[in-house]
Each structure stands twice: as structure tokens, then as C-alpha cells.
């Protein structure tokens, strides 16, 4: 099964769950006096779930008729991901998750420095003498611009400072 059809199938499942919530779960939580109202919270979701299933099926059928999907014209062959830098990509995504989790506890300056330096190292940078000053300088500069110039608070230091 191609990626295109797999996504359409997942979308249909999502629509069914969404529709079940709209038609059954939300219907049950409507209060008696609300029943006379023309518009209820689940009106649009009901329509959406039905339209969604129909459109999803249309994609499934069309992609079968069209046989080979053109895929993304400018880019990446999803069937053969190994020829790309998959490892680097996954590491960078993991770094982003780490950034999200550490931003609050250890503060903006440390996490940002680590993120930029870590990202460059993952991508193959080995000139540490250049890398560390760039990362530190960038983190301070951005923090200064955001906090002092724009006035948006970013906690700079770890929780114990």
C-alpha cells in the first residue's frame, strides 16, 4: 500500500472516531432545554465527519485508479528513505523534544546554547572553537532582543538561580 493511501485510510479512521464523538458522545451530553435550539456544538462536527469520510474514500479510490501517485514533485521518495539523512533528522527531532522538556527547568540561555551547538554537531560541525562562541552569543542576543526589546518574558536561568 502506498503512503498516500495509508494516510487516506488513517484519515477515514480519524473521521469515524470524530463522528462517533459528535453523533453519540456529544449528543448524550446535550441538556433537555437545549434540544430546541437550531445550532448545537455537534452540528458542524457531524457534517465534517460525513464529508471527511466521503472525501477520504474519494482519495482512496482515485489513488487506486491513478496507480502510481506522483508524490512530492520537488523532493523525497518516501518509499526509499534510507538514501537520505534519516539518522540526522531523527536526532534533530529528538533534540527538539529535549529542548521542549528542558526549556522551563534549566532556563532559556542554557537550553538554547545547547540546542544550537547540539544541532550543529549532529549535522557534522567539528570546529568547537567556533561553535561554542557562536551558540553562546546567539542565545544571549536572542534572549536580549526578545526580553528587553520586545518585552516578552523568557526565564533565562535554571530554577535554582
Amino acid at each position, binding site marked *: 500500500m502506498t503512503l498516500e493511501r495509508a494516510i487516506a485510510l488513517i484519515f477515514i479512521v480519524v473521521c469515524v472516531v470524530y463522528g462517533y464523538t459528535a453523533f453519540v458522545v456529544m449528543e448524550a451530553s446535550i441538556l433537555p432545554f437545549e434540544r430546541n435550539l*437550531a445550532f448545537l456544538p455537534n452540528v458542524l462536527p457531524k457534517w465534517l465527519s460525513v464529508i471527511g469520510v466521503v472525501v477520504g474514500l474519494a482519495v482512496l479510490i482515485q489513488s487506486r485508479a491513478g496507480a502510481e501517485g506522483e508524490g512530492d514533485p520537488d523532493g523525497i521518495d518516501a518509499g526509499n528513505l534510507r538514501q537520505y539523512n534519516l539518522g540526522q533528522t531523527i536526532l534533530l527531532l529528538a533534540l527538539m*523534544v529535549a529542548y521542549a522538556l528542558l526549556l522551563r527547568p534549566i532556563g532559556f540561555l542554557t537550553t538554547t546554547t545547547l540546542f544550537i551547538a547540539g544541532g550543529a554537531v549532529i549535522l557534522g560541525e567539528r570546529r568547537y572553537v567556533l561553535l561554542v562562541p557562536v551558540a553562546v552569543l546567539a542565545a544571549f542576543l536572542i534572549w536580549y532582543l526578545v526580553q528587553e526589546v520586545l518585552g516578552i518574558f523568557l526565564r533565562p536561568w535554571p530554577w535554582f538561580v
Partner: protein
Amino acid sequence: MIEGILSGLSTAFSIQNLLMVIAGCLIGTFIGMLPGLGPMSIIAIMIPVAIQIGDPAAALILLAGVYYGAIFGGSTSSILINAPGVAGTVATAFDGYPMARQGQAGKALTIAAIGSFSGGTIGAILLMGFAPGLATVALLFHSAEYFALMVVGLAAIAAFAGSGQVAKALMMTVLGVMLATVGESALFNAPRFTFGIYDLQSGISFITLAMALFALPEALYLVLNPKRSERGGDGGSNISNLRITRDEAKEIAPVIGRQSLQGFFIGVMPGAGATIASFLGYAVERNIAKGEDRAKFGKGSVKGLAAPETANNAACTGSFVPLLTLGIPGSGTTAILLGALIALNVAPGPRLMVDNPSIFWAVIISMYIGNVVLLILNLPLIPYIAKLLEIPRNYLIPFILFFTMMGSYIGQNNATELLLLTGMGIVATIMRMAGYPLAPMLIGFILGPLLEDNFARAMNLTDGISFMWERPMTLALLFFAIILIFLPSIRAGFARLKGDEAAQGD
């Protein structure tokens, strides 16, 4: 109207707003030049800044300046290193890069700047003429018509997605509207579809979604496939002579005239933005050109460079027509601008011209100023700005990822937003690999609440869905939406039929 224009003039020429235009154009040019950050990502990053300014006119002027600056910056990197920073400037590289390789980089940049300037300025004049008229008509609209109009807008965006893509684009639109129903809304007293997750209660932030749909997949593509950011030769070293000859000026003048008009009207149509305008502009001019002129296309023709450059800027301006008059965005970029306006407590739509004439006119007038800024300020600076292209990839990508995260974090000050961004970004990248267009999803997401709002009002007024066929205008619009959706497949069917006949005839 004169009063409005005058108050717009005084707003646009205030020191603060002039600085906004200049800053916007410069920031846009800088970032637009980098591969991996298109106008949508740049505007999304700038939104927290714009909201911090607080004054809606200034904020919109800043964001609009960033928008054309980004398109201009994108053409610079297309010409100098054959690496378009923005999809709308891919066609610019067809003739711009060959010119740069022939040592005419400076000339190519000048032509691009003149094309952008003329396209943008003529577009702004047309916008001034069209927008008030359209807004007056739109004032007659009821919530039922608004609902229908939004359905038309969403259908048109799907219909323009290309042959065989309509169903996919529709699917993305529906998904976008579905995502918009998550969380609390102004209409109801209880949150919906949060599945008990507390962080979803306030809904998904549109900046996070915009970043996840555009900036992050583009950055991940750059990591996955380093060839995308590979530079073709060094065209940028020779930016000495910025002058063009009188003959060349004569040659490109008609091209600029035609493409300003064509680009503008393509930009007005929902779903067809700067990218389509620039490709179509290039194709049309190549077809019009004859003999030797035509052979030059693709090998450094000045016409081939002027056409897409003029068309894409005219289209940028044109896309403001539906945004400012109907409150319906025609492209991903204007959808982001709409989101920013809503965040600033301004409701775009026909009432904008009546209620906030100074905002409406200040934005249009600042477009002229923006174009002048691009021509006289950015052009001489280009050799220096181009140094930015020398940032090594190892540093560039972490910074792009970092700015993507900052964009969604600053607005909400919530680290969970970053996890959401990463998750949705991965899903968006996979969908992009499978050839699903992502812009319809964002437009659906931003129009979703407005759609539901008008749907609810219309249903409450008629006590049901009978408004769909009782109001002729609504019925006509909905019918038009259905035609739009089925038109591509009907046309394809006809073409197949014709093809069969031709085959048999032969």
C-alpha cells in the same frame, strides 16, 4: 472614501509606520533569502512581535512589508545561487541564474527589483480601485451568504490544487476545519474534542500549526536531502554593475505591463497565489515571444526574468483583495495574516473599510511605500545582504529549527506547544512526502471558526438549514462551490473523451 484615504495617508506616513515598512521589508529580504524559510514561516515568526506592537495598523504594515520583502529576498537567492528561498520565485531562477552566470548578476537583480516594484505598485493601484467596490457589495451579505462564501473559498483553494489533487486538497481542508473545532470556542460553554487532555482546552494555536505545516517540513527536507540547499556555482561574486540599457528597458516594459495585470487578477482568485502567477506569467511571455527572443528564454532572457518577478509581486498585492474586503484568505500567507488580524482584535471583512478606514487605507498606502523601499533601499544593499548566503548549512539548519520553535513558544509561553509542534511537524512532513498539499489545511483551520460562527447564525435565524436553498444568493454560491470542486474532474473526463475520439479518428 477621500476621507479614508487621507486618514490612511496620515497613518501610513507616521514615523512609527514608516519605520515598520522599512523594518518589515529588510527583515523579509534577509530571511526570505535563506532556503527553508518561506514568507509563511517568516510572517508566522513575526506575529508575536506584531502583536506586541499592539497597534493593528502598524502590525499589519509590518507583516505586509515582511511579505513582499520575503518574495524579493527569495528572488535574490534564485538569481545568485539558483536556490529559490520561496516557491513563488522558482520561475525567477529560470533566466535569472543564467544571467548571473554570464556575469550579469547586478543587471538581473535590477530587473528583478524593477519588475517587483512595478508589479507591486500597479497591483496596489488596482487594489485601491477594486477593494472598495467589492467591500460595498459585500456589505449586503448576510451570515448565510458569508457561510456560503467561505465554502466557495475553501472549494476554490482545493480546486486550484492541480489535477488529481482536488480530493487530497479537500481532505486537508476538512482536516483543518476539524482541528479548528478542538478546544473551547466562543459559541459554546464547553470545550470539544479535547479527549480529556488539559493542554488542548484552549485549542491549537494557529502559529504552531503554521510552523508545523510549513517551516518544520521544509527544514526537515533540507536535512534529509542536502542537495536541496546545494548551491549552483558562484554567481554572487560579481554584483558590480547594476545598470540596464535603454534597449533592455524597452524590451521589458510591455512584459511588465501585461504581467502586472495578469498577476494581480491571479492573486485575487482564492487558491492561486504568487507561485501560480509567476509560472503562468513565464509561460505566457514565452509563448508570446517570437523567434530569437523565444530561443533566449531559459538562457538568460531579460523578458523571462521580468515576467515572473512582476507577476509574483502583483499577485501578492492581489491576494489582499479577498482578505481585506471579504475576510477570506486566498493563500496560506494571507491566511496567516488573517490569523494575526484576529489576534489583534480586528475583524477583516467589508466592515473593515467602514469601521477602521485608517487601517484599511494605511495598509494599501504602505504597499506603495514598501515597494519604494524595496527599490531604493534594498537594491543597493543586496551585495551585503547576499553575504548571508555564505552561512554554512551546519549552523543554518539549527537556527531555522530554533526560530520555528521560538515562533510557536513566544506566542503562548507554553512548552507543551513545542511538543505539539514537533509531533504535528512530523505528521506534516510525512503528508508532504505523500504529495498532500498543506496550505488548504491551514486555510481550513483559520476559516473554521468563522465558518461555524456564520453557519450557527444562519441556522438560528431560519431555525434549520433551509437558508441554503431559501436565499437565492446563498444557493448560487453553494452551487458554484460544487461546480468548482467537480470542474477539474469533468474537464479531465472531457479531455479523455476527446483523446479517445482523436485516437480512433487517426
